[in-house]
């Protein structure tokens, strides 16, 4: 995607409305683009002010909320300043009543602090849980695509070698799920591209994919219309092509495999 296309999404990104590949593409571009960074920063300032457009409501007890926040702050990150020196009781005076009173106050204070701390920790834990659930929902979606009733699979390997990639074709959802492992990284400006091969006909592009930092890939790719319309496919091939993909393969396939039905 070009800078001109991406910068049009700067407002959508600052509003937090980009998801999935759109967000990943924008965030991959952002660190290297001063103009997009400036746009996002300005739009984020706008989003900060938009909160003033909400209806004027107040906490039932703003003072109590303030006190809770300050108590939590003391608990979350204790101050580094040295503790004040303890006041020593006068010689000969009985300290027992004071100790008892102090113990009662300490118990009450600790109970209150514990409650506040737990509420703050609960809010943070709920945040983390929601993020985890969103991640799981994405994985569930991928798993569901693997397990559909009409799924074909092809294992791609070098001649007589072990498989280095598998492609699942979920006909119900009309998507390819590409899983790659043990593949070498491609040079800069290149990409992996998959091909659907029908005997006696030119290969059809199934799409391109990239490896992550650990050399693996899991991608869900919509099935191109010309493949859906073309009927039965015999084989699948993998080549390395210029970034963006080629109309036809420009090299001999590195990996090949035959489609079969998933039991």
């Amino acid at each position, binding site marked *: 995607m070009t800078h001109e296309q991406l910068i*049009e*999404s*700067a*407002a*959508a990104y*600052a*509003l*937090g*409305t*980009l*998801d999935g590949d*759109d967000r990943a593409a924008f965030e991959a571009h952002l660190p290297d683009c001063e103009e997009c*960074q400036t746009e996002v*920063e*300005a*739009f*984020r*300032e*706008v*989003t*900060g*002010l*938009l*909160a*003033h*457009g*909400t*209806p*004027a*409501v*107040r*906490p*039932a007890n*703003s003072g109590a*909320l*303030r006190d*809770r*926040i*300050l108590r*939590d*702050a*003391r608990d*979350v*990150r204790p*101050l*580094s*300043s040295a503790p004040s020196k303890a006041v020593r009781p006068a010689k000969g005076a009985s300290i027992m009543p004071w100790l008892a009173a102090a113990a009662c106050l300490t118990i009450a204070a600790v109970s209150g602090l514990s409650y506040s701390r737990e*509420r*703050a920790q*609960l*809010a*943070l834990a*709920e*945040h983390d*849980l*929601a*993020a985890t*659930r*969103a991640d799981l*929902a994405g994985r569930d979606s991928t798993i569901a695509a693997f397990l559909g009733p009409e799924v074909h699979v092809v294992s791609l390997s070098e001649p007589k070698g072990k498989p280095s990639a598998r492609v699942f074709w979920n006909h119900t959802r009309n998507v390819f799920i590409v899983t790659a492992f043990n593949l070498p990284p491609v040079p800069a400006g290149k990409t992996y591209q998959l091909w659907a091969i029908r005997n006696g006909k030119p290969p059809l592009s199934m799409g391109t994919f990239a490896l992550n930092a650990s050399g693996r890939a899991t991608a869900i790719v919509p099935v191109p219309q010309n493949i859906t319309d073309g009927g039965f496919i015999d084989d699948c091939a993998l080549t390395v092509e210029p970034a963006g993909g080629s109309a036809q393969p420009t090299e001999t396939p590195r990996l090949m495999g035959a489609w079969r039905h998933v039991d």
Partner: protein
Amino acid sequence: MLRRHALPAATVGDGPHPDCSRGRLPSDTALVARMARGDEAALGVLYDRHGGVAYRLAFALTHTSEGAEDVVSAVFAQLWRESRELRTARQSVLAWMMARVRRIALARRGVADGSPRGGVRIAQDRAARSRQAAGMKSRQVTGGTKPIEPLVRKALAELPEAQRVAVERAYFGGLTRRELAIEQEEPVTQVTEHLGSAMHYLRRALLPRAGTFEEPVTRRG
């Protein structure tokens, strides 16, 4: 015992709040620097300044007072804990806080609804929006609105309907661009255009952030 700081209301003017410019009031950035040194009073001042608007946004997103209070509490806890890092952030303290309010509130709502993002949640959002509007009528604070609020409301009201709806549903509804496209029955490209046009207009109308407690935006970090 921490002393409460009585602060003047935010006003509309040219640039930062006049009392910040004259050195009578510390800027948000100066307060965050004090917090990074463990100054609790600075956290109290920031709460007095922005706790109200943080609560309002949290309430608009969570629809409950308890949920809003928990969100605000969590955001200020993060602000306190991350104050060292925030000193070098390339955004204002207010923008940072409101982004956290949205993130935590939307995450909480996802947990409470137990629903995935998508069509189901959009329907639930519509119902929640009605509940929210009904609930807020009885909670409206009468009088005392700060000058910066009508400025924001006016700017939003001046947007073409499609742009205003797109921004409000994205910002207050937490919808993604694709969900907006489904809800508004428009192509994603059209939604992107609405959001872009709206935010450019709001940027011209609202920035520089007149009357806020922020120093002029400079490239930090």
